[in-house]
């Protein structure tokens, strides 16, 4: 099957068996790959009501039809599982080099089921598959484990690991790869941990079959040449995503003090220039990327000497602004601690910021934490609490379940500033004065994450006071951006470089032989959007509209200072946005897809499950 490796690898950790079966043609034809495969396989294979940490949950890993091929940004990988954070749909993607490696080994999907009776890692060397003991790695950091596996197996192996946080089933444990790239969101690292699966090591030597190798080479060359000729092709790279820090402050959308406000006065000490001038060692690219956003850094101080990839923008926002760590060195250090522990740095910074605000308000008292303090701005407190969380010690054990669950335990109004949607913590954009961005967070299928729809420039360009047209644009973006996660391509060429979307159907044809327009491809993405919604409806009791609201802080508290001072989004505005969004999506007032909508997007097979949920 052109563009695909042609096989699915299924591994059962309970029985220690595996099988390699041909990739079903209809799966490729209807769900493309990556996120599409993850969503469909989850729907089909994980039994309804499965415990996210039980043997019946599955970790599903999938590269896409364009992954590993000669074109810009072809190095993304999708991880999926029933999420312990949302209780429903969960996925997360990662760059680096492991996605192409899985295809060169011969696989379009890896399905991992069951639970091993002792710590293991999955060894994949082309079709040589082994479940190997990992007792010596268990308890070790994610980065250290990668180092040890590379020493053991050779540098040609690509490795994905979890840290202690994953082992201890922290609900925002990530999967780490390539010394600093993470599949961070929705707690799939914890699902790996629940399976006693410490790592996956992959090496492959096979060729990806192409419909037209000559056309692919020529089209790929044109695409790279077009990238090289874009304005500012090289000028953005030195700072990477960290370069946006000043701008997010300028528009008053920078998460600060657990999203109390949108402007951090010391942002220039943690911005891209600070990173570039003070700590960067090298630019570090994912496979086939001409504009590497990865910055590899070193910080050497009396207290520590660390190497870390980053901090990238999200980490700067959630560690730097949200917990007020006001210098790039300590941000990098906190980033390193989270990476080694295997904690998602978005949720990690958000949860620590939440705990700091609880301490500030007296909800967490000094006596609850052995007489110490938990103060905004303290990197020592940040590091201490991160470790307590990763090892589920003391109050860390409560916070390890994320801000939604911790607020239920703490009470005293803390749920108003538990900044999440659907149990997944908010990423790096304060949205009280950005209606399209607010709606993006509210309706993202994986909770409060920006990568399904990032609409802040749309908000600015079309007026942040206007609601008209916002829902429509969010829906468009929710089809465009996740489509990249189905093809398993990076979207930075498009967003950051201005690379035209028309290129992708052209190379798609050369690679797969299938002639599809960009709009045809977007239809696949809409199908998957409705499928992930349906999955969460199936799995979460009472799921629907009430799960699509932002925290009370954003609906009740005006931003106190900075460029967006006074702004907030009252519930009636939120409701207006949701009403319009559901209507345009063909969903009912409770956010449930109509029978007609399901049929329209080719999801007739979910109707019998969804029908009883409609009122």
């Amino acid at each position, binding site marked *: 099957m052109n563009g695909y490796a042609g096989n699915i690898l299924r591994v059962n950790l309970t029985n220690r068996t595996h099988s390699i079966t041909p990739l079903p043609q209809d799966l490729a034809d209807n769900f493309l790959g990556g996120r599409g495969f993850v969503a469909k396989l989850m729907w089909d294979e994980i039994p309804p009501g499965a415990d996210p940490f039980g043997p019946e949950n599955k970790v599903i890993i999938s590269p896409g039809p364009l992954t590993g091929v000669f074109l810009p940004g072809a190095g993304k990988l999708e991880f999926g599982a029933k999420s312990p954070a949302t209780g429903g749909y969960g996925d997360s993607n990662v760059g680096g080099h492991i996605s192409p490696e899985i295809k060169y080994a011969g696989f379009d999907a890896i399905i991992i089921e069951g639970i091993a009776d002792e710590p293991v890692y999955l060894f994949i060397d082309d079709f040589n598959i082994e479940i190997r003991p990992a007792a010596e790695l268990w308890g070790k950091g994610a980065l250290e484990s990668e180092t040890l596996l590379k020493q053991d197996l050779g540098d040609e192996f690509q490795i994905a690991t979890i840290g202690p946080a994953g082992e201890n089933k922290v609900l925002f444990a990530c999967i780490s790869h390539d010394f600093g790239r993470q599949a961070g969101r929705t707690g799939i690292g914890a699902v790996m941990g629940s399976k006693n699966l410490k790592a996956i090591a992959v090496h492959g030597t096979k060729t990806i079959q192409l419909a037209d*190798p000559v056309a692919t080479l020529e089209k*790929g060359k044109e695409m790279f040449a077009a990238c090289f000729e874009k304005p500012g092709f090289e000028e953005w790279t030195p700072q990477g995503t960290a370069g946006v820090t000043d701008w997010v402050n300028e528009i008053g959308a920078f998460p600060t003090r657990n999203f109390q406000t949108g402007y951090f006065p010391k942002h220039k000490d943690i911005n891209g220039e600070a990173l570039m001038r003070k700590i960067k060692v090298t630019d570090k690219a994912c496979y086939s990327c001409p504009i590497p956003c990865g910055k590899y850094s070193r910080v050497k101080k009396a207290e520590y000497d660390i190497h870390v990839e980053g901090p990238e923008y999200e980490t700067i926002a959630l560690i730097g602004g949200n917990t007020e760590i006001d210098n790039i060195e300590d941000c990098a250090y906190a980033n390193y601690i989270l990476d080694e522990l295997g904690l998602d740095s978005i949720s990690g910074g958000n949860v620590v910021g939440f705990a700091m605000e609880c301490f500030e308000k007296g909800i967490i008292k000094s006596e609850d934490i052995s007489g110490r303090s938990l103060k905004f701005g303290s990197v020592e407190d940040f590091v201490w609490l991160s470790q307590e969380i990763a090892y589920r010690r003391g109050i860390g054990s409560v916070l390890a379940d994320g801000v939604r669950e911790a607020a239920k335990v703490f009470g005293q109004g803390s749920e108003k500033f538990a900044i999440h949607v659907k149990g997944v913590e908010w990423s790096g954009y304060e949205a009280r004065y950005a209606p399209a961005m607010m709606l993006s967070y509210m309706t993202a299928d994986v909770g409060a994450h920006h990568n399904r729809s990032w609409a802040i420039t749309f908000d600015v360009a079309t007026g942040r006071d206007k609601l008209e047209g916002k829902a429509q644009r969010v829906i468009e973006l929710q089809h465009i951006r996740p489509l990249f996660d189905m093809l398993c391509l990076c979207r930075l060429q498009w967003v950051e470089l201005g690379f035209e979307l028309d290129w992708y159907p052209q190379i798609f044809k050369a690679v797969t032989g299938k002639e599809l327009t960009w709009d045809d491809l977007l239809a696949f993405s809409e199908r998957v959007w409705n499928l992930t919604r349906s999955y969460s409806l199936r799995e979460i009791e009472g799921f629907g509209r009430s799960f699509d609201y932002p925290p009370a802080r954003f609906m009740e508290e005006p931003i106190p200072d900075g460029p967006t001072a006074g702004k907030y989004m009252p519930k009636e505005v939120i409701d207006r946005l949701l009403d319009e969004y559901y209507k345009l999506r063909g969903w009912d007032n409770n956010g449930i897809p109509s029978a007609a909508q399901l049929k329209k997007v080719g999801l007739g097979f979910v109707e019998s499950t969804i029908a009883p949920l409609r009122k």
Partner: protein
Amino acid sequence: MRLTTESSRCSGCKVCLTICALSHFQENNPKKGALKVEGKFPVPGVFEVTVCNQCGACADVCPVDAITEKDGVYILDRETCIGCMACVSACPLNVMIVHPAETAPIKCDNCGDCVRYCPREAILDADGIVKRIGR
């Protein structure tokens, strides 16, 4: 054209390996690229790219004269090669590439595509004739 490198510019994207294999084998398989890109991580955190400098050490040890020089470039005739791999161990830069699906090793023929398409200009023509596309 003489290939040279500036490894401090390399970001490890491996575009060079993919285009090399796709150009020469019509296969999308960077494992068949005739050069090496290595990342030294987690410490010190640098990339190293190594290209053939056409020194001819491979030709010197080839028992069947499958590697011959023309205009300063050593070309491997894959039909003549018997796969003894003597050249692989003789290569001082470790850039005679072995791939399990190929009986002959894989050798650089100085085509320059890696120079034209390295996004970072980490692989260069020391003579300055071949340049990255758009330069």
